[in-house]
C-alpha cells in the first residue's frame, strides 16, 4: 500500500475533502472559507487557540452543525451531512472532547448507543453487547473491568477508552479525535498514541484536534492551523519545527512569511 504522502504527491483523490466551508453564529464567522483534506492512512492535525474554530469545523463533518456554505466530498463524491446519523452512514466516527457518554449507562450500552445489538425478537441483547464490549476492551485497555457499572463510576482514562472503543468498533474509515488525550495520564496518552499508529496502518484517515504542539509533531503527518475562524495554512510536519507551528498559532503567519501577514 502506498503511504499517504505518495498518494498526495500523485494527486490521488483524498478520502475526505472539506472545501471552502463557512459557518456563522449570530453574525460571528466561526469558520470562514476553510478547506482541509485527509488521505487514507494519514493523520492531519488541526491546531489553533481556543475559539479558533477547529472544533466547529470538525463538528460540521460529524454532523453536529450544519454548514452555511461549502462542500464535503468523500472519495471524490459530494455528500450531504445534516445530522450525526448521516456522518455515521459514511463511516465517519468522532471522539468528542467532552466524551459524549451517557453517564448513567454502562460501558456496553454506551459503546452500542444508537446501534444496539438486538435479539431475533427485536429486544436489545445486553449479554451479547457485553461480550463484544469485553472483546474490544481486551484490545484497547486490558485493565478495564467495570462492565456492569455506569460510566460515571469510571476514571477519566477508562471513560476515554469507552469513547475510543465506540469510534473504532464500527469499522470507521474516517476518525475525528477532538483532544483525545486531554483527560489522560502519561500511560494512557501513550496508549492513544499507539492506537493512532495502529489505525493509521489500517488505512483510516484521522483528523486530530489538539492544543499540544508536541503531540501533533509526534503523531501527525500534516497540520492545518486555524486562527479566528480562518485557515492560516497547512504544512507537512517533516518540513516544520515546533516553533514554526507555534508562530502559526500565535501570530497567524506561515513559516517564512512576514509578521504582518494577511490574517487577523
Amino acid at each position, binding site marked *: 500500500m502506498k503511504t499517504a504522502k505518495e498518494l498526495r504527491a500523485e494527486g490521488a483523490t483524498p478520502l475526505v475533502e472539506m472545501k471552502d466551508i463557512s459557518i456563522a453564529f449570530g453574525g460571528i464567522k466561526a469558520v470562514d472559507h476553510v478547506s482541509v483534506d485527509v488521505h487514507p492512512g494519514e493523520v492531519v492535525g488541526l491546531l489553533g487557540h481556543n475559539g479558533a474554530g477547529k472544533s466547529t469545523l470538525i463538528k460540521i463533518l*460529524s454532523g*453536529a452543525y450544519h454548514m452555511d456554505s461549502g462542500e464535503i466530498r468523500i472519495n471524490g463524491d459530494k455528500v450531504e451531512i445534516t*445530522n*450525526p*446519523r448521516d456522518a*455515521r452512514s459514511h463511516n465517519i466516527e*468522532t471522539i*468528542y472532547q*467532552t*466524551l*459524549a*457518554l*451517557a*453517564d*448513567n*449507562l454502562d460501558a456496553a*450500552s*454506551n459503546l452500542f*448507543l*444508537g*446501534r*444496539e445489538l*438486538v435479539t431475533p425478537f*427485536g*429486544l*436489545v*441483547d*445486553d*449479554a*451479547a453487547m*457485553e*461480550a463484544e464490549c*469485553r*472483546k474490544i*476492551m*481486551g*484490545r484497547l485497555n*486490558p485493565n*478495564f*473491568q467495570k*462492565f456492569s457499572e*455506569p460510566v*460515571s*463510576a469510571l476514571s477519566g482514562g477508562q471513560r476515554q477508552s469507552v469513547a475510543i472503543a465506540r469510534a*473504532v*468498533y464500527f*469499522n470507521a474509515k474516517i476518525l475525528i479525535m477532538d483532544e483525545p488525550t486531554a483527560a489522560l495520564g502519561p500511560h494512557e496518552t501513550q496508549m492513544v498514541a499507539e492506537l493512532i499508529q495502529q489505525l493509521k496502518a489500517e488505512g483510516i484517515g484521522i483528523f486530530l484536534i489538539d492544543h499540544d504542539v508536541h503531540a501533533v509533531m509526534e503523531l501527525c503527518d500534516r497540520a492545518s492551523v486555524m486562527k479566528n475562524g480562518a485557515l492560516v495554512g497547512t504544512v507537512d510536519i517533516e518540513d516544520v519545527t515546533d516553533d514554526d507551528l507555534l508562530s502559526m498559532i500565535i501570530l497567524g503567519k506561515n513559516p517564512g512569511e512576514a509578521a504582518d501577514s494577511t490574517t487577523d
Partner: protein
Amino acid sequence: MAEATTQPIQTPAKRSLFQQLELDTRLLGMVGAFIILCIGFNLLTDGRFLTPRNIFNLTIQTVSVAIMASGMVFVIVTRHIDLSVGALLATCSAVMAMVQTQVLPDMLGFGLNHPATWAITIVVGLGVGTLIGAFHGWMVGYLSIPAFIVTLGGFLVWRNVAWYLTDGQTIGPLDKTFLIFGGINGTMGTTWSWIIGIAATALALFGLWSGRRARQGHGFAVKPLWAELTIAGITAGAILGLVWTLNSYLIPARRLKRMMEAKGETMPEGLEVGYGLPISVLILIAVAVVMTVVARRTRLGRYIFATGGNPDAAELSGINTRMLTVKIFALMGFLCALSAVVASARLANHSNDIGTLDELRVIAAAVIGGTALSGGLGTIHGAILGALIMQALQSGMAMVGVDAPFQNIVVGSVLVLAVLIDIQYRKRLGAK
C-alpha cells in the same frame, strides 16, 4: 480488528450472603417502608387495614395513578415534566363518556348497552389521549417550548375542554360492559385468578432462568444458584400471595344472590365466591410488564435513559431526540386515556372533577419511587410502589380518622422527606 483477546472475567470477591442476592437496596427500603406502614395502620385500626376487603380496595384505588406514574417515569427520566395528566385524563374521560352515552346510542343509533359500544369508546379515548400527548411532545421537541410551560398550559386547556364537552354535568350511567374495567364490577373470579397467577409465576421464573442462561452462554459470572432460587421463591410468593388475598375477599351474600338471580339461577345455601383479580389490576400489571420491557430491553427505552443521562451524547450518537420526545409524550397521553377508562368505570360515571390533583399524585408517586428529576434514573416498579405507598397512606389515615387537612399535610411532608432520604442514600452510595 482481527485480534480477539477477550477481557478476562474476574471471579467476584467474597461477599456476604445478602450481597450475593444482588437486590436493589433502594427498592428493598421502599418495600420495607410500605410493610411498616401497613402494619402500623393495621395496629391503629385494630386489624381492619390488612383485611382482604381493604387490600382489594387499595389495589383498585391505586390503579389509575399507578398507570400514569409508569408513563411519568419516562417523561421525568428525559428531564421533562407533565403537569397536564389529570386534565388530560378528564378530557379523555369526557370524550369517552359522550361517545358511549350520546354519540353511539343516539346519533349513530346503536341504542344503550350495544355490545360494540365499549370497544369503540375505548379505541376513541385511547386515540384522543395519544394524539393530545403527541401534540404536547411536538411542541416540546420540535418547537423547543419547555415541557413545564406546554403542560401547564395543557393543564388549563384540557381541564376546561372536558368541562366544555360535558357542560360541566356528570355523565352517566356508563355502558354496562365498559364498567368491568373499573374494579369491583369486573373481576376474574377465583378459578381464573389462580390460573392467571400460576401462569404469571411460570413466566416470571422462565424470565429469570433465561436471563441466567444468556449470561452463562457468554461465560459471565452469575449469582449462586441458591440466591437465584431465593429470588424465584420471593417472586412466586408475591404473585400467588396477591392472588390468594384477592380471592379471599368474598362477594357479599346478598350481592351474589342478585347476580345469580339475574342469570336465572337460585343461590345454593352457604355458597361462598371470592372476587379474585380485578380486571383493572390486570391492566396495571400488563402496563407494568410492558413498560419495564420497553425501559430495559428495547432501543426506545435505551434511548430514553441515554437522553436523560446526557442529551448531547444521545444527539451525537445519532438518536433523534426530538422524535423521541414526541413518542414519550404520546405514550404518556395513551396511558392517561387508559387511566381515564379505569377511573371513570370505577366511579360508574364521568364527573367534572375527575382526575383533579392527579398530576401531583402521579409526579409524587414517580419521585417517591426513585425517579430523579435531574434525569436518567427511574424504574417502573418503583413508581408503581410509590403510588401504592401514597394510596396506603391516604386511605390508612382516613380509616384511622385523621382530619382531612392533616391527611394532605402528611402526604406532602412524606413526599419531601422521601426525596431527602433518597438524596442522602445516593450520596452515601457515591452515585450521582
